[in-house]
């Protein structure tokens, strides 16, 4: 079930009403059933896969037992089994055909070699697999006791607000909340509803409208000028941010209604002053997962420079691969790894520079932010392009645009009317202003506790969505970008 659908708009209030109407001991089983219903709306069969993965991780964690009971070899064996089974499932559904086509290309075979299989990628498999594996590793490390209640654990894995596109939550955050008995506090409703509306506004007004520009340009880059391709690259950067952060907002707002607080997944990423900073602000749950379960076990930053760079490359290559079974994603990961590697190598240079130039001077910060944003945009071109060749073409054309001619910009020829471009641009400015707030949670809290302000903001968001949103009979529905991962 998509968030941006009539079904979800019915599903959420009905589930909420039933949840609070039910006695406490039945609530989690009900929410589990509702989460599976939500997931099965796409493809019922894949719920079995999720159930299997849940059962394996649950069983392996229980078999490991608490860390204090010792049995390191036994515990490691269960961990390895759990990792092997779940990663094998993930590999098969997500990467088998990619591997097959890559191997066959390498061997120069058009027939024979590894057979391609007709496999449909189960929605959310990357997310719930990583979430479940994170739990197992936490149990192994002794950071968490194994969860005894299968219902509670299964609900942690399948909790519908964050099931399909994250955030990838930690069991230590979610499980205790699921065990509490929640009361519906009317005063908390406005904050949750406003967060959901902000998400829908980002998705339907900004992301889905920009998708029109992006899809056209990236499908046939040669039909566009360098300036238009630069605009398309910029549009995609905002599209993917608004699309993904919208999902998180809706997920967080929806979860809050059930009394569950989900982590933030984005923290004003376009205000990052370095790539390192960017990854502390973008898809925080995934970067946190890789830091905890890959980067730090490899040694993290507490190793020599060479090893550190190696660790970073491994993490970012894996991150790229996690996003999808295509070389463009791997290359995107490699590009970010490279950015980080160069950053590490240039650390001493930067230290010297900031002795001469104040690091926090507004102009210096502005330059750093713009430079980082440009690097991020460029990397996103690789992420979105349909092939590496296309990515190179777009980057080259965009970079040479000032020399080949910026005008006519002809942005109105990219699929959106001039009026819509202006409206989207205004919303992007508002979004950046909102992102630029020191404490968005506090801001939302203040607004939602002030009578006239919450209704004014709510009305503004609803009318924005109603009038400027990309929806309707003639408009193909845009699924959330991260559903494909």
């Amino acid at each position: 079930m998509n968030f941006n659908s009539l079904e979800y708009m019915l599903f959420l209030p009905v589930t909420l009403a039933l949840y609070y109407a039910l006695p406490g001991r039945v609530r989690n089983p009900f929410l589990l059933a509702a989460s599976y219903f939500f997931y099965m709306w796409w493809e019922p069969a894949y719920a079995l896969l999720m159930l299997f993965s849940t059962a394996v991780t649950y069983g392996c964690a229980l078999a490991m037992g608490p860390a204090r009971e010792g049995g390191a070899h036994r515990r490691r064996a269960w961990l390895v089994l759990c990792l092997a089974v779940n990663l094998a499932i993930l590999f098969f559904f997500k990467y088998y055909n990619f591997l097959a086509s890559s191997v066959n290309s390498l061997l120069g075979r058009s027939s024979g070699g590894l057979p391609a299989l007709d496999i449909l990628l189960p929605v959310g498999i990357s997310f719930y697999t990583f979430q479940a594996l994170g739990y197992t590793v936490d149990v192994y490390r002794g950071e968490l006791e194994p969860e005894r209640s299968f219902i509670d654990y299964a609900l942690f894995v399948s909790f519908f607000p964050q099931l399909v596109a994250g955030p990838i939550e930690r069991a230590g955050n979610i499980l205790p909340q699921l065990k509490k008995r929640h009361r519906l506090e009317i005063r908390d409703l406005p904050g949750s509803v406003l967060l959901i509306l902000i998400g829908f506004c980002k998705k339907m007004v900004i992301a889905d409208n920009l998708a029109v520009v992006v899809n056209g340009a990236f499908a046939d880059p040669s039909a566009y000028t360098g300036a238009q391709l630069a605009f398309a690259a910029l549009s995609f950067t905002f599209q993917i941010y608004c699309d993904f952060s919208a999902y998180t907002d809706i997920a967080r707002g929806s979860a809050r209604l059930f009394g569950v607080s989900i982590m933030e997944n984005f923290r004003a990423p376009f205000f990052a002053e370095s790539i390192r900073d960017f990854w502390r602000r973008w898809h925080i749950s995934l970067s946190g997962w890789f830091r905890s379960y890959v980067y730090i076990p490899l040694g993290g930053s507490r190793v020599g420079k060479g090893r550190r760079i190696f660790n970073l490359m491994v993490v970012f290559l894996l991150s790229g691969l996690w996003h999808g079974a295509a070389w463009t994603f791997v290359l995107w990961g490699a590009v970010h790894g490279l950015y980080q590697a160069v950053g590490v190598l240039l650390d001493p240079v930067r230290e010297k520079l900031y002795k001469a130039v104040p690091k926090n001077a507004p102009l210096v910060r502005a330059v750093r932010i713009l430079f980082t944003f440009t690097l991020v945009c460029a990397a996103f071109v690789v992420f979105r392009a349909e092939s590496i060749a296309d990515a190179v073409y777009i980057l080259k054309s965009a970079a040479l645009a000032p020399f080949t001619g910026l005008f006519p910009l002809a942005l109105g020829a990219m699929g959106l009317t001039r009026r819509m471009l202006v409206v989207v641009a205004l919303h992007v400015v508002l979004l950046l202003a909102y992102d630029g707030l020191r404490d968005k949670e506090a801001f939302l809290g203040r607004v939602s506790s002030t009578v006239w302000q919450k209704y004014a903001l709510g009305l503004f968001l609803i009318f924005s969505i109603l009038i400027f949103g990309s929806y309707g009979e003639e408009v193909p529905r845009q699924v959330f970008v991260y559903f494909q991962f």
Partner: protein
Amino acid sequence: MKRKTKEIVALLLSLAILAGGCWYISRMFMPDRTFYGAGWSMYREEKRDSVDVMFVGSSFVYCDVIPGKLYADTGRTSYVVSAPVCTVATSYYYIREALRTQSPEQIFLEVSSIFFDEYSQYADVAVGYMPWGVNRLGAIFASAAPESRFGLLFPPYSYHQRWQEMELPAFFKRGDETPDPWAGYMYLKEAKPMERGQAEPVELESISFEKNCRYLQKIVELCKDRSISLVCFMSPSCRPYGEAELELIREQLGDAGLRDFNEDAEEIGLDLTTDFYDERHLNFSGAMKFSAFLAEEYGESWQSLPRRDFDGELWSARADKILDPDEGDV
């Protein structure tokens, strides 16, 4: 003001603003409708209870009957209440809606629609422009395919993006809130030479014939209840239905009977080379001849109808318009 009172006031005010906004978008963002039928905004500008005779049906009515010509020849007022591919069910709700502001003595119903599909591909137009009320709701669920009902129940879903193409005045006033100079007729100037033939036999299994018959009966009953004389007819066509199809209709109509104007093609004087827009629709020249025929056939009986208070100036203008059809042609 206490907080609780403030909350309630703010909530009610917000709901009112939201409802008002949705109403505004529904009303102002829909394109004006001034031709090809379903011109309900213009219909509602017609003086109440000023119409003697009504013509109801699909494009076979709004392309074929000119109320201005009927008025010029008989001095009696008429109106064409129809829509493209208007199903029988929609016609039923059209009649109910039309009778809210008019009380015609006679209704002419074009009954080719008995062979139409259950759901019209033009339901967004036929039903979408109907005034809000039980008749519109009835038409939505009777004539619109399930996937298009939401847009009809909530027009912003279908029309919210039009703000991008609307000029500034359109945000404040609709352009179709004046009386229709054609009283529902659609002016088609072009002539295409045609050849006479016969329509393909209808496969009853492929249409919702039973449902269409049911609504036809409802129309017959409605007219009976309101003491309205009902004339069911087939409009002139290059490809009229065969005897088998006509017999099916006659069975449904019983005493109400069927008037097939294809039998009068010669008397009407229709010329296949100059009077048709396509094989099923008359052009202006053909509609003038057909309307003249109707005036000849029924004009005398209309003189016995009670005199109504109508806008003489408007009707004179409509009669003048047929002499100089002007803009609006296709």
